[in-house]
């Protein structure tokens, strides 16, 4: 829209990108409302957006094709075999769940920590969470030999009088992931209700009015509603915080509970969670950087946000690095011959290259963020976010495949090589993720209106100047004759 022609982008950007400021200047309540809801309501379909959607939708089609073929033929179409009975499917699952962590973390944890800078990124971070978890949830389902019997994991009184085997980490997974998904949806939706009302108010066409009206449940912004709303919102945050930690801990237990050398390790939960946050924040950057660029949200999603994400990445990647060292230490210290062999084999064995790749991507590259210059270099941040994604995915694959392909009995050792269908499924879910996201930014307010309004008020009170204060009725009253 207009902004392409008139480009205050660089001039003000320099001004607004003072990393200190959470918002680029103080917007008026109205402008916040309109600016955000316009993206949903009035902004015409842009070629760039359409292009992106088409690309990602193509991959959704590939995914559908791959899954259909899978259901017809069986999981044999993948590269898995008997020592390596879990291949890409589970690695992708872990990777996606990890990405799904940043959203809730940002919105819940930072909310409890009263971090202002969460405000303008939490909404799409949460959306990201949902879509990532949706992609993740796909894998445990399709990796089953008989997917149509997945419902045997649900405890319900059946004619066989049988129950799930509650000692199995996969059942824990089932509960953890579904709980996480549900709570995230609730949290996301609850936060969005007032904004949906705002969009409703801005909407012109009956259809939009109808849909947003229904979705906003007739929200009135009543003071008492706000009261309940807030306490519920904070309670959900308080619930989501341990939840988000538990989810990836439980996912890590899929491995830690097993006796496979390279899996059976007590440090898995913390180090999986760290990895999850790492990949999650990387994904936030991957999404935020183009978003603010194309939708001119530089003043809402400021350098402050990007830099903070960068800092989180730096910390978590260091934790992950510590995890690697810890594993090596335990392999040596435990004196367990199998562990020892596994770790040496991980570094120097058939899949050694993957190990060095993940060390480079997850630990080394992000160390550059110690320098502020790197943290403020948007281009570098974007590149880095992609590198970290790759690294984290590689780590999951290494943990799954490399540990399995040589365990206790040398007679059973066998290599694993992915097939075209493994890749199709992986890229397919990536397509699905972005397709959902593209749709999201067009149909729902991607930044929380009410919260930014609140924030702008607070800013106004700090700075003393702003578009709202001066229109005070009180001041006018004095002028009255």
């Amino acid at each position, binding site marked *: 829209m207009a902004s392409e022609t008139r480009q205050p982008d660089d001039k003000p950007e320099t001004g607004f990108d003072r990393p200190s400021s959470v918002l680029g200047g103080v917007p008026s309540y109205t402008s916040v409302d309109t600016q955000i809801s316009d993206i949903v309501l009035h902004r015409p379909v842009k070629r760039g957006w359409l292009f992106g959607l088409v690309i990602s939708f193509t991959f959704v089609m590939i995914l559908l094709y791959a899954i259909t073929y899978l*259901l017809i033929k069986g999981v044999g179409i993948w590269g898995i075999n008997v020592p390596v009975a*879990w291949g890409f499917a589970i690695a992708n699952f872990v990777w996606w769940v990890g990405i799904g962590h940043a959203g809730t973390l940002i919105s819940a944890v930072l909310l409890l920590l009263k971090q202002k800078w969460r405000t303008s990124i939490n909404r799409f971070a949460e959306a990201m969470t949902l879509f990532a978890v949706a992609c993740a949830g796909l894998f445990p389902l399709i990796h089953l030999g008989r997917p149509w019997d997945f419902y045997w994991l649900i405890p319900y009184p059946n004619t066989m009088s049988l129950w799930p085997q509650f000692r*199995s980490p*996969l059942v824990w997974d089932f509960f953890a992931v579904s709980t996480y998904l549900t709570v995230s949806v609730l949290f996301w939706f609850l936060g969005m209700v007032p904004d949906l009302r705002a969009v409703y108010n801005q909407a012109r066409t009956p259809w939009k009015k109808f849909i947003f009206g229904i979705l906003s449940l007739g929200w009135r912004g009543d003071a008492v509603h706000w009261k309940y709303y807030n306490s519920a919102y904070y309670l959900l945050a308080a619930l989501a915080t341990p939840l988000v930690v538990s989810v990836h801990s439980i996912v890590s237990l899929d491995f830690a509970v097993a006796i496979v050398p390279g899996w059976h390790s007590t440090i898995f939960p913390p180090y999986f969670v760290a990895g999850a946050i790492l990949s999650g924040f990387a994904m936030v950057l991957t999404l935020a950087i183009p978003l603010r660029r194309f939708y001119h949200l530089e003043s809402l999603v400021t350098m402050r946000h990007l830099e903070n994400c960068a800092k989180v990445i730096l910390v978590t990647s260091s934790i992950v690095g510590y995890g690697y060292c810890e594993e090596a230490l335990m392999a040596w210290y435990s004196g367990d011959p199998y562990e020892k062999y596994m770790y040496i084999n991980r570094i120097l064995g058939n899949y050694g290259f993957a190990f060095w790749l993940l060390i480079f991507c997850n630990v080394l590259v992000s160390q550059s963020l110690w320098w502020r210059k790197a943290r403020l270099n948007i281009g570098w941040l974007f590149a880095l976010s992609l590198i970290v994604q790759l690294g984290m995915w590689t780590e999951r694959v290494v943990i799954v495949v490399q540990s399995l392909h040589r365990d206790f*009995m040398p007679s059973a050792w066998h290599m694993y090589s992915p097939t075209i269908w493994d890749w199709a499924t992986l890229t397919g879910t990536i397509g699905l993720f972005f397709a959902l996201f593209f749709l999201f930014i067009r149909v729902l307010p991607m930044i929380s209106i009410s919260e930014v309004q609140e924030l702008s008020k607070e800013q106004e009170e700090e700075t003393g100047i702003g578009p709202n204060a001066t229109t005070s009725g009180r001041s006018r009253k004095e002028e009255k004759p």
Partner: protein
Amino acid sequence: MSVTDSAPQPEPDTDLETLRARLAATQGPAFWRGLEDLAQTPAFQEAARREFPRLGSVLAEAKQIGAGKTKAQEVSRRAFLTVMGASLALAGLSGCATQQPQEKIVPYIDPPNDSEPGKPLFYATALNLGGCGLGILVTSREGRPIKIEGNPTHPSSLGATDAIAQASLLSLYDPDRSQAVIHRGVPSTWDDFLNAATAQMQAEQATGGAGLRFLSGGILSPTLAEQRQALLAQYPNARWCSYEPIGRENMQAGAQMAFGADVNTVYHFEKADVIVALDGDFLLTLPGHVRYAADFGRRRSVRKAKVDLNRLYVAESSPTITGAMAEHRLAVRPGEIEEIARALMTTLRNGGVSGSFSATSATQSWIATLAGDLQAHRGRSVVVVGETQPPIVHALAHSLNGMLGNVGQTVTYTPPLEAVVEGQAQSLPQLVADMQSGQAQTLVMLDCNPVYASPADLNFAASLPKVAFTVHLSEYEDETANLTQWHLPQSHFLEAWGDTRAHDGTITLQQPLIAPLYATHTPYELLSILAGKLDRSNHDILRDRWKQVYQATGASVDDFDLFWRTILNDGVVANTALPVFPATLLPAFAGSPPEAARAQTSQPSDPQALDLVFTPDPTIWDGRFANNGWLQELPKPLTKLTWDNAACISPRTAQDRGFTDGEVVILRYRGRRVEAPILILPGQPEGVVSISLGYGRTRGGNVGVGAGFNAYALRTSDAPWFGTGLRLEKTDKRVSLAITHSHHTMEGRDIVRAATITTFQHNPGFVHDHQNDPERPESLYPEYHYPEYAWALSIDLTKCIGCNACVTACQSENNIAVVGKEEVLRGREMHWIRIDRYYEGKNMDKPNGTYFMPVACMMCEHAPCELVCPPGATLHNRDGLNQMVYNRCIGTRYCSNNCPYKVRRFNFFQYADLSPLKQLMRNPEVTVRSRGVMEKCSYCVQRIENAKITADKEKRLVHDGEITTACAQACPTNAIVFGNLADKNSLVSQLKREPHDYSLLSELNTRPRTTYLGKVSNPVENSGA
């Protein structure tokens, strides 16, 4: 054309009906099965089988071995689109509510006398293999043979079997079997053949059969031998020649050389303290090897109470399981064996090594040690030579045995088993000459495949068309069938009457288990047809012959029925073992070895040249089992190679010449060439390439065709087993070899625990020494108690010879699917029990030891797999069995990941062949697993449960030895013992109290129910060899 018109077969038909009905109701939503079975519904397949046998078989094959092949993976576009949309949506719901499809019940018209529905029946019969008959008991359910076990009363079996015997069941149900008479490539009928044959024979009658030629394998059947005699009497000028690709020409000639007469040598290993095998693989290929393995195993028992160990010396030119069992193994070029034999002889005569030939120090000391040992064990030693060695070596062995006073003790001689005694080596070239010259007018080939298996230099295929009238009776439409005018389908031995001889001559009656599935007949019938008796049935021929034999003994005809029933029931004809043959050594061999008879084994002229050795294939023998999926997928004992043969070379040779596994090379040998993949085999002698026969089939079934390369193409009649002058040429081609066990060493882990006998005597508990953790670490969990039954398995690594009998037995008992080469390459073979093979020592050219370790589900009491199974499809029962419930399994494969022994198998595709023909073969007591389901060894729980039911009815407990597992039952050496641990007196309990009993990976505290007895060997201490 139709199969049904010529042979009445109501029985199979009705069965197929029921089966098709039963097939309709399998677990899993019909929706999905519908998709997988698209265009492969049993009805369609059945129709196809009847109308176009070839097509039917193609479909069956596509399903049998095609699971991994792309052609079977392809899904029709229509099928795909049908699901494309619905699939995702329906995937979940389809499981919820599905109505049961209607099953039919088809009763008998008249019930068969002695059979009760749901109860198995056992029939005694025998199969011919490797020059002697093996007595077996066949389990029959509702008139269908479903399992083969050894016949305890049969001298060659003693209740055990080998892999091939077990797998021969599958051949019966092979859709690729020849199903109709074929005349010049066109389907015809038996009637047409009868007319043609009668006419031809009348023509021959005139000349007394001057143009009449017969070609057959060795004839073990007395009845067939008599028919042959009669026929030759009828046609005095006719000639009968015999050719076995893996025959006993050398033994025969050797005997001639030593005794002036052909003899059949019977060994008594149970009496031998010292065994010397010169290229003599008596554990796997020698006639009677099952019995020999049993006898050998009996002398390999290491118990705290009593240690009884023989000592085995092996000098061999290509690694065999016999070599793997040897205390002192010597890998030599094939030509050197003779020298060794001679050296041994001279050494024994005049003490101290003879300088007659230049041997390496290793060889020298080997001979020295052996000589000393033999001196010490006169009369309690035995020298065995294999069929691959030239006659002179056999002769030398005879004289050695004579010299050591073994004859009458560990070695006895009988008249030959086989009826055809003319020099077999010459007979085939003679026949080909006649064919070339046109002397041969009529050629009748009985159960043989000369076009494929005859020596390349004879060029049999080219001369076959020159014969006016050719007849070929065979189970498959093989290479020969393609070139003969009349191809006649032969009955499988489970469909036929017959008789055969054990390795000691004892006769067994063969009786049919099922009416011929197709319009097939037997050699007996064919011979009687040719003799002009068209109306005599297979049964009549046998019964009448035996009636005569019975009357000849002077017994009254009235008792014959009783006699007949007795011999059928026993599976042996009492005291028909051949009498001892008074073989006396000819003077030449009485003294020191005659130099004259030295076979010219020239040392290779140019250094590049290698020795070539042909070996019988340990799984598909000479190629006659090439279409048997079980055997094709059975890992060969040492190479662990499936679906292929390869040119095996030693690591050193590979290193020197820069060859790697799977690299295709051109073998140039005596002006012939063949392309073969390289396989590096530890223990292979330096500069020797050994290739196994039987592969490279071009016709005769979809399973076998295209697998491996044809070794016969290099085989010449003058040097059928080995020769020098082989050259290898590199190519840029590679093939991937489906090897199930590629890692040779144990990585220093305490997997197989071995010691010498002296170590054992000083420290019986040696197995627990080099293990950092206690055998049974403490556990936090409360103990579960198993008061009534606690099933357990004990595997004696000292006894296990790695012969694979258990693997095939398990496959047959438990309906285990064949997956095909591609799937094996991916690491998806389905065997419930595998035999791990490890080498010990740094030098891969001369491994210090080769160990076999059968590994099946360990039935851990603290099973890691159970803990992680989400639907609880695998869990413990009250007998402490680790149950795997297929119908509850959703296929997360988590259990397999968490199984430290990796004994769980997963159905990545629909591996199980659901075609009606295969349904006939299934063990109805075991669920046929569907796609997406995990499976594993169950300790043959179907046997356990049935035994418990029987016991419960009698209000008692199952007592020891009442049941055993399929693997234990098949094992010739009784290395595997199954029993109840709760019963303190059971054999298995006793074995587990042995000091050298240990459990695999015990440090994981999985508490396996399967434990091992450490391997104890009996070498001569401080010997260099």
